[in-house]
């Protein structure tokens, strides 16, 4: 970590890899797939080393173009950013690995053009959004990740995907328009876009602008709520995730977490304690909406008639849980949310991959919940059972630990009764939905004939990707202690925002390696 430029590597590495892949993919597809896999593996190593660098609680700032913080754009790496980077890298490795596998319709990454390049650009956008300490730069990275996601959603083509794409693109473009209105209102009021500088200036906003400031703050959270899929802004999610190909859906699981990350960041840094007129303006709304999201996700899961949609509703339930923790806003609930975030992201991505791999032998039935022939039902059934137990939040998996952490931390909240009821009942609903899906798909399955079995043979990369994610889900149980203490430290760091502000605004510019002015004089 002595090299100051490590922080920008998660943005530059996918950019370079994506650009190279655009040149290579047509002529040498096999080499391109390997390069993509190598780039994501390297990305994972970088993310691990960045997480190690933040473990002692330091916040690292990086001044782009060597401009001092409020004037230039700064990147900031704290525990939360490092955690999100690491999680993104892990899901990315599994998705790319799965995409290199061979399904019944041929290789997953060859079902449409530019898969690997778009994938890398999406990673660039995600990493940039997690790292940036500037609101307008956050908008730009949002657009980078969205434009790549539009391409990825269309991967594999087909009418269902086109229809889902139109809804998804229009919804997100409208969201971007609202984002720009919120950001420019904040700029008009405070004269700055740096999040650390905004946090310092917001308390001293004159009282006559308080209403405008509150409107901007709430509008910003609406925009992040679109990404995080909070009630009533989640209708795009199930169509989109249900329509996307499996490796894309697995990566999209992390995309809802961008919204959660941004809400956690702005509510603690800019609209948290001692923020004058916008102090805790978001939290009361957030908790109630999160409870509604949880309830509707459970109903949706019960009503889902397709496995992919069922998993999409599980992603929605996880978004509800996470926003609930952030909305309650104490160190304990935020720590519980972050713990649950790690677990639920990994398990939901694994479920998307598992469903896709499993339905290969079901022929016409696809992922519909009807009895159909199923090859290697034993193996898939075991995996499904493990992941269903994990995602529903039953012991011994991480979901159980995360949910109990949240329930314990919310005991003294005024909303405690609502939280306990919603979390426990929605978990029950999800257990019922998963049990019904499992019993239809596995117990009523006819044995597959030899041809179906041959068609459904999961290829080695697919198995590898599933093993990686299931292994990671198990690791969240084995290493629950260290992960919980890391997320507790993360929540503390978020609420005690002085470190972040001091690191970003106090970052020193690097001394110039050469003096351009002196050199210009020499030339003259």
């Amino acid at each position: 970590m002595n090299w100051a430029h490590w922080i920008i590597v998660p943005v530059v590495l996918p950019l370079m890899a994506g650009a190279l892949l655009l040149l290579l993919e047509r002529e040498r597809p096999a080499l391109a797939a390997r390069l993509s896999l190598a780039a994501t593996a390297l990305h994972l190593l970088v993310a691990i080393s960045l997480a190690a660098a933040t473990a002692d609680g330091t916040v690292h700032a990086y001044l782009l173009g060597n401009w001092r913080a409020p004037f230039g754009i700064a990147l900031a790496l704290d525990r939360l950013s490092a955690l999100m980077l690491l999680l993104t890298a892990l899901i990315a490795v599994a998705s790319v690995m799965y995409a290199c596998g061979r399904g019944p319709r041929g290789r997953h990454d060859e079902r449409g053009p530019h898969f690997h390049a778009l994938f890398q650009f999406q990673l660039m956008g995600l990493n940039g959004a997690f790292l940036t300490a500037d609101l307008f730069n956050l908008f730009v990275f949002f657009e980078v990740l969205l434009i790549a996601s539009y391409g990825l959603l269309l991967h594999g083509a087909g009418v269902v995907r086109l229809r889902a794409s139109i809804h998804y693109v229009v919804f997100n473009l409208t969201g971007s328009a609202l984002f720009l209105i919120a950001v420019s209102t904040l700029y008009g009021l405070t004269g700055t876009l740096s999040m650390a500088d905004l946090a310092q200036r917001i308390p001293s906003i004159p009282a006559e602008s308080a209403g405008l400031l509150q409107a901007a703050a709430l509008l910003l959270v609406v925009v992040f709520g679109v990404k995080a899929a909070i009630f009533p802004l989640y209708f795009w999610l199930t169509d989109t995730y249900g329509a996307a190909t499996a490796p894309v859906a697995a990566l999209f699981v992390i995309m809802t977490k961008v919204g959660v990350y941004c809400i956690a960041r702005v509510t603690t840094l800019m609209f948290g304690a001692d923020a004058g007129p916008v102090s805790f303006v978001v939290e009361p709304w957030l908790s109630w909406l999160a409870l509604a999201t949880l309830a509707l996700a459970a109903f949706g899961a019960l009503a889902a008639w397709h496995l992919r949609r069922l998993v999409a509703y599980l992603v929605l339930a996880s978004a509800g849980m996470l926003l609930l923790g952030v909305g309650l806003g104490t160190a304990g609930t935020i720590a519980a949310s972050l713990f649950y975030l790690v677990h639920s992201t990994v398990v939901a991505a694994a479920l998307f991959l598992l469903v896709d791999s499993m339905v290969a032998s079901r022929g016409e039935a696809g992922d519909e919940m009807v009895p159909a022939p199923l090859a290697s039902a034993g193996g898939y059934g075991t995996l499904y059972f493990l992941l269903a137990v994990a995602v529903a939040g039953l012991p011994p998996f991480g979901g159980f630990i995360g949910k109990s952490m949240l329930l314990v931390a919310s005991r003294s909240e005024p909303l405690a009764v609502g939280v306990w009821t919603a979390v426990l009942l929605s978990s029950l609903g999800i257990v019922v939905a998963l049990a019904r899906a499992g019993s239809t798909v596995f117990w009523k399955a006819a044995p597959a004939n030899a041809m179906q079995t041959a068609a459904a043979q999961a290829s080695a990369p697919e198995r590898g990707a599933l093993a990686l994610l299931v292994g990671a889900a198990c690791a969240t149980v084995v290493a629950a202690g260290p992960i919980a203490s890391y997320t507790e430290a993360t929540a503390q760091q978020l609420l005690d925002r002085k470190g972040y502000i001091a690191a970003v605004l106090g970052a020193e510019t690097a001394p110039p390696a050469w003096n351009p002015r002196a050199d210009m004089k020499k030339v003259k």
Partner: protein
Amino acid sequence: MSMELLLASGLGVLTAAGVWLLLRARVFDVIVGLTLLSYAVNVFIFLTGRVRIGAPPIVDAGRAPTLANYADPLPQALVLTAIVISFAMTALILVIALRANAQTGSDHVDGAEPGEGRAEGQGP
């Protein structure tokens, strides 16, 4: 003052027209609505630098470097970024809409005329 009023009401009309078109069921109307909305947003960003006439954006030696003497150059830089992005996004959604129209034979946002019912396929 009258300039502010004119700009603000113009923005309001643009946004209202954009939102109204956005809520219609035809893809073409929706795209025009998005375009109007992005125009409104771009002008809004520009105006966060306040309405100033004849103020230079670059600091010179003669005047004190406060915003009272200069125009704010940052919103102008922001609006350029926003224009480029919204232009690219409009081009992209136009391509998706044309493709969808070619494949479904309908320019309804759900890909099927009302009454014909949505195709229920969810699969890949």
